[in-house]
């Protein structure tokens, strides 16, 4: 038998045959390792955990159209690709307009939105009833509901009234990339010709719709259906000149002129479209404690029907990422897209960062304290073990054990305990972290395979360190104690 095998045999015998004593040492290391492993797991996981928690405070990033550009739903999907899918909790587009409720002579701010996303970016919205699921359904802010006395199930008739107020954009100002314009001009016989123009990202005409319903059907009325006439407009840049950019529809010069004029004078849609009225069913009353209680929420589809436009004013994003990461995403979005800029909701991101910092500091501190306590506990236990085994150590020295052998044996026992404690702690620590995570943060954590070897090494280190003083004691024992016939 080699010396090493005898060494291992002695150590394992010491641990296995003196179970009750060693159990205490093992327990103290095991519990220490458990809490350490648990806290480290939580420590590593806190940003993710809290990131998810913070998302309940609402959006932390906004997408806005850049100065002199417009943002619509089609663009949104492309923009969102900049942000990793698993970090994007939700993206809620909003389009704000004033709607009238003629029957009550009231007017409210209405927000067109995507109701499937609202709970993700505004988890604090409290709904009495339900979110609308279909078109022609609205969610009504509590203040409005109280004012006009509507309840879940009531119907509301809402009218979009394009206002020609002084502040409206001029046709020139309206010709921005991706804009949706609407215009009108007097046609043949005093009737009005309406046009809806969509611009592409170069601000050239992407599509044109003509409503010439009041024009003589066989003549001017054909303008709306004649593909060849319509095709002339596509790709052209405003303003247009009849006869140069566009040829008149034969037999309908006046109507053609009116169309060109309507196109040339077209403005951003909400300021120039025709009044539209729709009937809505109230599906829920919204309570937030904030300004949202003064809004009516409806679907973007209904918003398009009312205003004829798919433009968005703002998109609220909820992104689960660190402050630095968010800054990076915001910068990337603004850089990569000509028409969209991203801004962080500083109020949310800053408080997140500060809370996170404090929480990690706290967990770190507790980890440190636990580490220290574990060392003290193990050290005390080993100290007791040494004094309990004074006679045995004396005997070993009397039999010729060098100081080095005594050190090696106790360190060996300590390391073995550390190893067992580490395995115990690594496994229990994960369970501990899981329980804490589920109970405190309400989400589970994934097992880090690296945790086990790290816990084993750390607890072996702690055990070794804790053994230093007891070993010093053991080495100092006088072998002569075995001789005195005590």
């Amino acid at each position, binding site marked *: *038998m*080699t*010396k090493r*095998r*005898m*060494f291992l*045999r*002695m150590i394992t*015998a*010491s641990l296995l*045959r*003196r179970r009750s004593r060693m159990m205490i040492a093992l327990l103290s290391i095991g519990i220490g390792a458990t809490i350490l492993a648990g806290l480290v797991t939580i420590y590593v996981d806190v940003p993710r955990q809290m990131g998810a928690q913070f998302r309940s405070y609402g959006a932390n990033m906004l997408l806005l159209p850049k100065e002199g550009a417009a943002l619509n739903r089609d663009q949104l999907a492309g923009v969102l690709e900049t942000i990793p899918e698993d970090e994007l909790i939700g993206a809620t587009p909003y389009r704000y307009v004033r709607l009238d409720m003629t029957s009550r002579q009231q007017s409210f701010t209405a927000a067109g939105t995507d109701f499937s996303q609202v709970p993700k970016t505004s988890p604090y919205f409290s709904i009495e009833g339900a979110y609308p699921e279909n078109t022609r359904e609205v969610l009504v802010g509590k203040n409005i509901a109280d004012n006009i006395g509507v309840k879940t199930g009531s119907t509301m008739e809402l009218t979009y009234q394009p206002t020609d107020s002084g502040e409206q954009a001029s046709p020139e100002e309206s010709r921005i990339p991706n804009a949706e314009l609407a215009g009108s001009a007097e046609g043949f016989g005093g009737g009005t010709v309406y046009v809806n123009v969509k611009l592409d990202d170069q601000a050239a005409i992407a599509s044109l719709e003509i409503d010439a319903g009041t024009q003589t059907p066989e003549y001017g009325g054909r303008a709306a259906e004649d593909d060849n006439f319509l095709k002339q407009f596509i790709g052209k840049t405003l303003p247009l000149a009849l006869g140069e950019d566009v040829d008149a529809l034969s037999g309908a010069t006046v109507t053609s002129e009116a169309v060109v004029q309507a196109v040339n004078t077209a403005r951003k849609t909400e300021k120039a479209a025709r009044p539209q009225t729709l009937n809505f069913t109230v599906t829920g009353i919204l309570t937030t404690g904030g300004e949202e209680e003064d809004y009516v929420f409806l679907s973007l589809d209904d918003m398009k029907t009312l205003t004829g436009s798919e433009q968005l004013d703002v998109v609220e994003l909820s992104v689960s990422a660190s402050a630095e990461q968010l800054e990076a995403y915001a910068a990337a979005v603004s850089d990569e897209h000509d028409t969209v800029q991203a801004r962080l909701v500083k109020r949310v991101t800053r408080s997140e960062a500060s809370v996170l910092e404090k929480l990690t500091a706290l967990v770190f501190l507790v980890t440190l304290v636990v580490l220290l306590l574990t060392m003290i506990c193990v050290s005390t236990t080993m100290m007791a073990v040494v004094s309990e085994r004074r*006679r*045995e150590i*004396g*005997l*070993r*020295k*009397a*039999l*010729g*054990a*060098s*100081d080095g*052998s005594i050190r090696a044996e106790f360190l060996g026992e300590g390391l073995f305990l550390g190893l067992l404690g580490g395995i115990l702690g690594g496994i229990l620590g994960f369970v501990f972290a899981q329980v804490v995570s589920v109970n405190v943060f309400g989400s589970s954590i994934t097992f880090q395979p690296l945790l086990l070897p790290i816990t084993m090494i750390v607890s072996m280190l702690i055990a070794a360190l804790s053994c230093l003083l007891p070993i010093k004691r053991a080495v100092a024992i*006088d*072998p*002569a104690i*075995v*001789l*005195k*016939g*005590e």
Partner: protein
Amino acid sequence: MSLLELKNVSKIYGELKALDNVSLHVDQGEWVAIMGPSGSGKSTMMNIIGCMDKPTKGEVLLDGVDISKESSKNLTDIRRDKIGLIFQQFHMVNYLTAVENVMVSQYYHSMPDEQEALEALERVGLRERAKHLPSQLSGGEQQRVCVARALINHPELILADEPTGNLDEANENIVLDLFAQLHREGTTLIVVTHDPEVAEAAQRTIVLEHGRIAREVINENFGK
């Protein structure tokens, strides 16, 4: 041939002279008993011979080496190589089996060899108790294991401190028979005791009183 020689050895603790100018000569293969009342300096003498303490004055030659001036590390080496110890309280490692306890001595000396350890147990008549823990052995059995442990490395000198102090008569006789056997094989034995019967088994008895050798008795009946 001289194995152990104490020349004018004194051990002084403050005012107390535990050993006072003691000279002693032990030949290779001799069996010597050391007697004396408690406080006579038996333990001090044993500690010094056993390389666990150093005299204040004088020389101690063990196998030609003066151990009175050696460092404690060297003393450990000398003790391991030359001396086999047997104690009154047996002192076994309580979580190791009988054979493992014998192997501990081999482990510190050279190489553990289970077969050899078992043979040593065979010699003390405990082959079949090899896998028992000390708590499963009687006092006599434990002391026999300790004898096996003391002789396993073939020491020049076996030093026994009250080896039968905790044993009944039957076991005392077994241990003394083992000593006689070792003596016949040429091992030098020094047995510290206050039991006249144990002392009478030896060739020569040294009686200590107040740190001095009071008298020396040659056992005329030895071997008869």
